[in-house]
């Protein structure tokens, strides 16, 4: 009987939805079957409510926004000239400085320290511009321009630096404290493949040390408004270098962080970059004074397809607004290695410009670290987002 009722279900819904006539056998069945008569009544009411309540607001015209994301950007000649003039000026100054330090300069004059070449900012220039239409019918793939500014100002840290997962505030004990591996330095002209390989996870872990780590915000984030389309940036801080990998090449986020930060602990999400999947677990960090805050600590829990062992690095998570991180949402992740109490305090700072190849917008990410206090500022088109995390060690609880 039940199967027979199910056989008429489509007919019932078609009747109430499209006004089609009920077949004779269905009509006869419904007249005799209380369940089907009830189903017809309920379907009629539901269809009515669904259709009357189907109120779609006027669709926005998304063409310009989509075009901005898919069309090539025109380089501005004036900007190019500005770069050229700035380059000439810097070159002139550098030549002047070298000449003044040369053999012929006055004896007794104090020498000026010259920043080593490796510490100087380097630029990956945008790819030579070609109109996207010129790629039509050529079989060539359009590669949007990329740019990364690199400042290497972090001093060398002890080799036995400990790496620990960070949890928000006092509470959980983090058992796995991985020993860091030496990361290969990433040159400014690094290809994406090399970049991916160099950001492989920390390989080994040690459960012997069970320090308790806590992180808390020391400054309430300012208005968490969008800061422009920064895409996603992953910043990993290594032993004597810092590495950054842009993750805005259509990152596919699963899981959601923002919005859950306030009340839900241990949110996880995945982000794909090249062939690797980064799994982050995020602890909420809400400013108790204002009740606001989108700053949370992040643990890079896993990076699949490269190794199965957990990376166990810790860091900060920044994003703007209440939206989940997804494609084109401004997100910066800074992975910091916290030092054990006996280690020499680490201080450094760097900033980089994240250039979104899709939207053409830039966001500046500034990172300042003094000991176990890290500040991050995201500044883009709109309001900046700023926050900081302090890292404290409580031995064996």
């Amino acid at each position, binding site marked *: 009987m039940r199967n027979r009722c*199910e056989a008429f*279900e*489509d007919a019932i*819904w078609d009747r109430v*939805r*499209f006004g089609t006539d009920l077949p004779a056998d269905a009509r006869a069945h419904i007249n005799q079957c209380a369940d089907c*008569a*009830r*189903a017809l*009544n*309920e*379907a009629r*009411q*539901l*269809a009515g*409510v*669904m*259709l*009357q*309540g*189907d*109120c*779609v*607001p006027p*669709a*926005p*015209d*998304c*063409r310009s*926004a*989509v*075009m901005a*994301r*898919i*069309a090539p950007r025109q380089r501005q000649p004036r900007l190019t000239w500005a770069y050229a003039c700035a380059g000439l000026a810097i070159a002139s100054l550098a030549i002047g400085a070298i000449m003044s330090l040369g053999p012929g300069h006055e004896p007794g004059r104090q020498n000026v320290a010259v920043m080593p070449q490796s510490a100087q900012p380097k630029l990956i220039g945008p790819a030579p511009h070609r109109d*996207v*239409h010129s*790629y*039509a*019918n050529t079989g060539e793939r359009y590669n949007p321009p990329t740019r990364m500014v690199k400042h290497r100002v972090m001093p060398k840290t002890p080799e036995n630096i400990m790496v620990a997962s960070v949890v928000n505030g006092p509470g959980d004990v983090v058992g796995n404290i991985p020993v860091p591996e030496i990361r290969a330095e990433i040159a400014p002209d690094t290809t994406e493949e090399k970049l991916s390989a160099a950001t492989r996870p920390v390989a080994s872990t040690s459960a012997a040390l069970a320090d308790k780590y806590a992180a808390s915000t020391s400054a309430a984030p300012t208005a968490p408004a969008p800061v422009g389309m920064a895409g996603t940036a992953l910043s990993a801080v290594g032993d004597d270098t810092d590495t950054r990998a842009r993750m805005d090449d259509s990152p*596919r*986020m*699963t*899981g*959601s*962080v*923002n*919005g*859950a930060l*306030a*009340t*839900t602990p241990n*949110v*996880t*999400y995945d982000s794909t970059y090249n062939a690797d999947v980064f799994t982050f677990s995020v602890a909420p960090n809400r400013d108790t004074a204002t009740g606001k805050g989108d700053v949370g600590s992040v643990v890079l829990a896993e990076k699949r397809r490269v190794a199965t062992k957990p990376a166990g690095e810790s860091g900060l998570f920044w994003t703007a607004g209440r939206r*989940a991180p*997804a*494609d084109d949402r401004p997100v910066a992740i800074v992975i910091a290695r916290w030092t054990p109490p006996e280690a020499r305090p680490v201080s450094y700072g760097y900033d980089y410009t994240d250039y979104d190849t*899709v939207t053409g917008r830039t966001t500046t990410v500034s990172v300042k670290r003094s000991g176990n206090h890290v500040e991050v500022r995201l500044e883009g088109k709109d309001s900046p987002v700023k926050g900081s995390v302090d890292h404290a060690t409580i031995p064996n609880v």
Partner: protein
Amino acid sequence: MAKSDADLVELAQSGNLRAFDELMSIHQERVYALAYRMLSNPEDASDVQQETFVRAWKSIGRFRRDAELSTWLHRIAVNICLSMKKRREFTVSEPLFEDSIRLSHEPCGVATLEATETAMALRNVMAAIPAHYRALLVLREIEGRRFEEIARILGCSEQSARTRASKARKLLRDRMRPYLEEE
């Protein structure tokens, strides 16, 4: 003379952005409507609308012209909606009741109906049922599509679409029963 979808697709596949722009103007409203019905949030629907066309542009070279472009676009949109819904399972969403109230203030002409208990209950129930069932209800019972087309959008067999629709209706009826009148 206006070009057909097929002509515009052919041009877009050769990298013609103007043709793609025209395709967007033709299809963007329906894509938005589908996303809005799936997500009940204008901002999210707008995001899905944009993302759908960005992804469509990226993969338009792989689009086979024997299929309907609208079906293909709606398939992309549904997939984005489903992944978005999946993400939301992690989040603490706004109370649906508030959402209903907020939406009821929108100038859509059915504010009175929105305010009724049944309409609000339906919104809440629709938001709470699994996304793949919701997709079936939206595509079939609200947008009135044929199962053949629904199957192509969802990437399943027609029989599977019918079975899922049956389960979705049953779920809807069961959860809405307290709000429905008996004859």
